[in-house]
């Protein structure tokens, strides 16, 4: 077996040093009833070529985003990732290292995390950011629970524009901890509806911009209302490229910003691994979940970086920790940092402008399709349309034309009664030919 270096002679010699007769002696503590003498009913080992053949056959059954016209967004986005990013994250020293608990021999990872935190803080317009969460959805749930710790209140209000998966994750986790979660009905342009739900027991309000329907909202007034009631404002963003064009959450008064960072540096991966961005105001730093990297000096005064404020974390504080998170999304954070370093402010702004332009091209083309209505008033790179006859059927039908037409909202939230709403997205990877193919195929479908 190619991954196992010991030879039969090694094993025999080592057993001798240990003073054991056979390998079974080393498993003597396992109760006899639980010892399995024979192999489990699974295939035997296979060579690299055979494994590659089997997995390639499975991969070939899937339709990659880059294989043709493709318009899905809704929390995960098709973007071009420079080749440099994937090369660097596959370097052994980054790929095959552990959490940087020994800072003297982990300065590579630690400095990257410091750069990551600094970039995330800048993007979100907030003072501090952590070294990553699993993804945006779990970051959202963590933010709500952090608001409970900060305000010592139990109630959270989720806007109807929040991605339904994010709402479900937050409800699942925060509810288990005893919080009362109010989720407003799904609505295309009603982030401000949370205003009516804020009261003196409210720990936080969670709004999303651009929201799951693509609607961009200035949440400044919501921030003011939340603060007046002693509540925190949590702003969620699923499309990190939008930070290159839109006002930042911090600028609009957010106390905590949560974002999915997948768009920058991380591939689609059928949903994971992704990277959760988590930033907040400095005064709340000791209530933050997750790892933090901080600057310090070594014994000779050289600047260096370490994991810090660990007394918030489970390995030190155990049941009093701010979160149970341990493993996070380090390598995806590295990919994010490299891609964003390559973009820089100039590149990110240009990239955002192109995304916004392609989405408007798409809107212009789809608006001309008879019977189709564009529902999202203000958007960045995704928006909702009404498709007569139902969105799910249209997506299925357009697959025959090799057009992946977007995400039926009913797939995310079947109970919302929005069966004719289709979420569509365009990015820098979308071509005019893709847009034309979509519009043509959709016209044909709607005319049927």
């Amino acid at each position, binding site marked *: 077996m190619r991954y196992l270096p010991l030879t039969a002679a090694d094993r025999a010699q080592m057993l001798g040093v240990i003073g054991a007769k056979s390998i079974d002696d080393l498993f003597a503590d396992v109760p006899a009833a639980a010892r399995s003498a024979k192999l489990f009913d699974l295939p035997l080992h296979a060579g690299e070529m055979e494994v590659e053949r089997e997995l390639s056959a499975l991969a*070939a059954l899937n339709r990659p985003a880059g294989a043709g016209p493709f318009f*899905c967004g809704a929390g995960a986005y098709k973007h071009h990732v420079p080749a440099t990013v994937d090369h660097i994250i596959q370097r052994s020293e980054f790929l095959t*290292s552990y959490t940087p608990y020994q800072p003297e021999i982990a300065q590579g990872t630690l400095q990257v995390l410091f750069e990551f935190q600094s970039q995330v803080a800048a993007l979100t317009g907030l003072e501090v950011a952590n070294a990553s969460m699993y993804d945006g959805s*779990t970051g959202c749930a963590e933010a709500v629970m952090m608001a409970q710790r900060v305000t010592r209140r139990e109630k959270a209000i989720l806007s109807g524009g929040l991605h339904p998966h994010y709402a479900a994750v937050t409800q699942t986790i925060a509810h288990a901890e005893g919080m009362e979660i109010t989720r407003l009905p799904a609505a295309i342009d009603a982030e401000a509806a949370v205003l009516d739900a804020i009261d003196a027991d409210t720990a936080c309000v969670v709004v999303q911009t651009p929201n799951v329907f693509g609607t961009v909202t200035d949440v400044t007034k919501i921030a003011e209302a939340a603060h007046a009631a002693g509540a925190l404002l949590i702003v969620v963003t699923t499309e990190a490229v939008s930070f290159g064009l839109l006002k930042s959450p911090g600028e609009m008064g957010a106390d905590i910003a949560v974002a999915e960072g997948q768009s920058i540096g991380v591939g689609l991966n059928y949903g994971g691994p992704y990277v959760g961005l988590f930033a907040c105001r400095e005064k709340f730093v000791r209530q933050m979940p997750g790892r933090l990297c901080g600057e310090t000096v070594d014994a000779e005064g050289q600047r260096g970086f370490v994991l810090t404020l660990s007394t918030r974390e489970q390995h030190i504080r155990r049941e009093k920790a701010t979160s149970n998170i341990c493993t996070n999304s380090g390598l995806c954070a590295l990919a994010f940092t490299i891609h964003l370093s390559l973009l820089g402010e100039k590149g990110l702004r240009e990239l955002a402008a192109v995304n916004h332009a392609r989405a408007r091209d798409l809107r212009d083309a789809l608006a001309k399709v008879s019977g189709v209505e564009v529902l999202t008033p203000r958007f960045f790179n995704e928006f909702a349309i009404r498709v007569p006859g139902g969105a799910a059927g249209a997506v299925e039908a357009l697959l025959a034309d090799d057009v992946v037409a977007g995400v039926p909202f009913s797939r995310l939230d079947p109970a919302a009664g929005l069966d004719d709403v289709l979420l569509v997205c365009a990015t820098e990877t979308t071509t005019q030919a893709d847009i034309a193919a979509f519009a043509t195929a959709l016209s044909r479908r709607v005319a049927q």
Partner: protein
Amino acid sequence: MSMSNVGRPTRPEASASSGFASLNGGRGLLQDEALIFELDGWDKTGVDIAPAGRDASDLGDLVRSAPIGLPGLSEPEAMRHYVRLSQKNHAIDLALYPLGSCTMKHNPRLNEKMARLPGFGDLHPLTPVAASQGALELMDRLAHWLKTLTGMPAIALSPKAGAHGELCGLLAIKAAHEAKGQGHRRTVLVPTSAHGTNPATAAFVGYSVTEIAQTEDGRVDLADLKAKLSSDVAAIMVTNPNTCGLFERDILEISRLTHAAGAYFYCDGANFNAIVGRVRPGDLGVDAMHINLHKTFSTPHGGGGPGAGPVVLSEALAPYAPAPWVVAGKDGFKLVEDVTEEAAQAFGRMVAFQGQMGMFVRAYAYMLSHGSDGLRQVAEDAVLNANYIKARLSAEMTPAFPDGPCMHEALFDDSWLEGTDVATLDFAKAMIDEGFHPMTMYFPLVVHGAMLIEPTETESKQELDRFCDALLALARAAKSGNDADRFKGAPHLAPLRRLDETQAARKPKLTWKSPTNTVAPTPLAAE
């Protein structure tokens, strides 16, 4: 004191241990590397983006006006910056990485290649089910392997890491209790030797935590367990093999007592590598166990993540598994995503989308490569390697539990350092100078000055001997009493000397701040 180009003291005397100092403070190929924010790249970019071809926006004052403050690098600069940084890291590809409880094994590159096939890596999570059949089939097959290897009937694939899997398992337990009218149970029992994530997770879902004592031979104290089991106990969380590297000999009795008290048995599967292919947790009475794909099934640790933590479940807990899950049908594979209809008893959802597909592909490639025979050999070699280290190091160091074999990791205490000035931390830091990553230190908490060594099965005998020789030589030096600086000043030969963690925590500096207190220069307007 000389200053580097970023205003840092370079302290050429830092290199004095070799008796030679460079003029710029660097050490040959190992150079100081500034932060990207200090590289003067405020108007640079390393990407070429075609013009947008339309007006900047129609969004009025929703558009940001102030600069973001992000530096950019050209491609060659970026490559150099990150490659230089990489060289300051230790890695499993460089040497044995003996972190106990972390299972730092070789990461096969075939798995990386497979995860990058466009059919997996470029697949959107909301691609129509008809156009993602291969992904669903892979998830179904992975589930089959994991259920077979654990002897458990059900699995939730979506949790994103071990602690997230613990959360999933406890939420299923909570839902099961509530369904049986047992929602009043408020306590989770956790042995004192447990990983910190266990009590943290229990508290996270609103349970109170009660510790169970440990016996002198490093196992759960059955008498204490009996005393603490009651109608208030929702679950017990036990790691097996435990964090002392020992198999819980009374595991069948533990599960029997737990079930008799109406509680569920959560097993922390972090140490599954020790028994994979040989022992099935389902045969031990486990109700829920997470599997760290980034440990036992070798998906890379990536400097702290990502991982994946699928949870296998017993019949009793299976109905409460979270959405989504894959169902194989006559017309292909289906993804059940809605927690309100077919999944009425599901406790909810752990994550957006389906979980760590990139890790599923890697772990499945790893399993196919090993097969049932190779996986059994994995456990045997992992245990053999740990016992070999325990046997060899016992010549100078004191194993915490000398009697009987250990499983996949060998635990030492610090009694052999008594009378020296050297503490566990100093000894571990001195290992860095010998070219090895320190072992896990001061964990588990039940052993004084603990040193927990997990070699894994992917080490050759030559590397194990090199490691043991180095540690034995260090141990003799520590005991000699006349080599104090080797330990107190360690590491001497790492990119940095020991770091001041107290200062970092006292006045946290978590992001780069412009030394001139002005934000970056005005950036270019978007085109």
